């Protein structure tokens, strides 16, 4: 099996110059030369040179779907851990319930998990999130696991190919937050299987043709089960 892998770059590695290329994400320019600013995978799309990080915290972007864990209920808001450098603020105006002042802990308490959307990211990186949209709610039951936020696109695959596969063969409900948190619900055995495969995808994300190999693996496993 071909195990061709993407090129790994390290910070300060020279990637090209500004005459023939444009500096994309994960790069910086100095004296007309483009350098990588972090450990990551090199990706060139049209003229742009991007570095996809291998590791690192989630960088919040407006309208991202995320899974958050309540850190602390305040009198008219909640502080929510969303795996970003800063906790996010969930105001009582942004929840579907009618919350009295000082009674926030009746609705969401420390340790509760929510599916939420990023409402706004301020200039000083003040993050506000909301529960007021369809499919956003407090999570009851299921299992939450974490992967590197930079590997979420790989887990979803091209047009959702990977995640559809995973859902089909493990017969479980899987919801992926952009911040690297994944909620899984189903039979215990299926959850375990899904967790195993997710770990494998995360570890081998630097190879090409991963979706095909994961499909093979899942097919083989499901034959054994039946």
């Amino acid at each position, binding site marked *: 099996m071909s195990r061709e892998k993407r090129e790994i770059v390290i910070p300060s590695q020279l990637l090209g110059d500004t005459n023939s290329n444009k500096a994309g994400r994960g790069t910086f320019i100095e004296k007309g030369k483009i350098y990588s600013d972090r450990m990551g995978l090199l990706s060139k799309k049209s003229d742009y040179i991007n570095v996809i990080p291998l590791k690192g915290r989630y960088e919040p972007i407006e309208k991202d779907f995320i899974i958050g864990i309540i850190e602390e209920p305040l009198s008219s808001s909640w502080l929510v851990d969303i795996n970003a450098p*800063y906790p996010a603020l969930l105001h009582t105006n942004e929840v579907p319930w009618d919350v009295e002042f000082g009674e926030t802990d009746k609705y969401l308490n420390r340790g509760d998990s929510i599916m939420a959307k990023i409402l706004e990211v301020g200039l000083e990186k003040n993050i506000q999130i909301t529960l007021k949209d369809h499919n956003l709610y407090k999570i009851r039951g299921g299992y939450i696991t974490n992967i590197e936020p930079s590997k979420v696109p790989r887990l979803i695959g091209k047009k959702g190919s990977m995640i559809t596969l995973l859902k089909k063969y493990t017969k479980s409900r899987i919801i992926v937050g952009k911040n690297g948190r994944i909620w899984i619900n189903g039979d215990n055995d299926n959850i375990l299987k899904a967790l195993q495969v997710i770990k494998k995808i995360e570890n081998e994300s630097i190879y090409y043709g991963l979706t095909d190999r994961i499909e093979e693996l899942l097919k083989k496993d499901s034959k054994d089960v039946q």
Partner: protein
Amino acid sequence: MEQDIKFIDDDGKRLDGRKYDELREIKIEAGVLHRAEGSCYLEWGSNKVVAAVYGPREAIPRHSQNPLKAIVRARYNMAAFSVDDRKRPGPDRRSREISKVISEALEKVILTEKFPRAAIEVNIEVLEAEAGTRCAGLTAAGVALADAGIPMKDIPVACAAGKIGSKDDYGKKIGGNIVLDLGKQEDNFGDADLPIAISPRNGEILLLQMDGHLTLDEFDNALNLAIKGCNIISKIQKEALLQKYQVDMEVD
């Protein structure tokens, strides 16, 4: 302090058999700790250092936050068992100074403006010390930061040069030799120590300290030698970072 050590023998070899421009053996491993965001274990001669990076996360206490950029907090600490006589644990004058200069060196390479109000914490733990721990600590911190995926302009690297043997067997003053990477004896009984840290991409100096006396010529000489050492170590750092993902691939 009476010195009757002969630092350089007739073949031009130093106490531990190195040449004047030779480094001690260096081994670097990235990503050794799982709880930290990034980490590094480094062996440099008998120095053993672990560095761990946490964050970026919101800086606490709040008044320490900078609304425009992240703050870098390096903490250099020597273990009680790291030296011959037990070192009294806790921060002292020396380790606070080293923490400060390392923080400032790291601040120069990290793209702090990407994380306003945040703190990036770097813990450097010296498990075993044998001269040149600040260089070892900073070198390890550079690898740990890159391993943590923190955006930075360069991987900082540090190395020392110094002067030894300026007195002959009878205590008379002679020229002395500029050598790279002082060992324990050379550091304790030598004449000068010049640790520097550079950003190897453009040669910018991030840290420069000097203990002892050097003439201007000797200083230039030592600086160039130390920069040469830094560039060698920089290669080892980069190999260590790539090695981590090389090994990850072999797994299952």
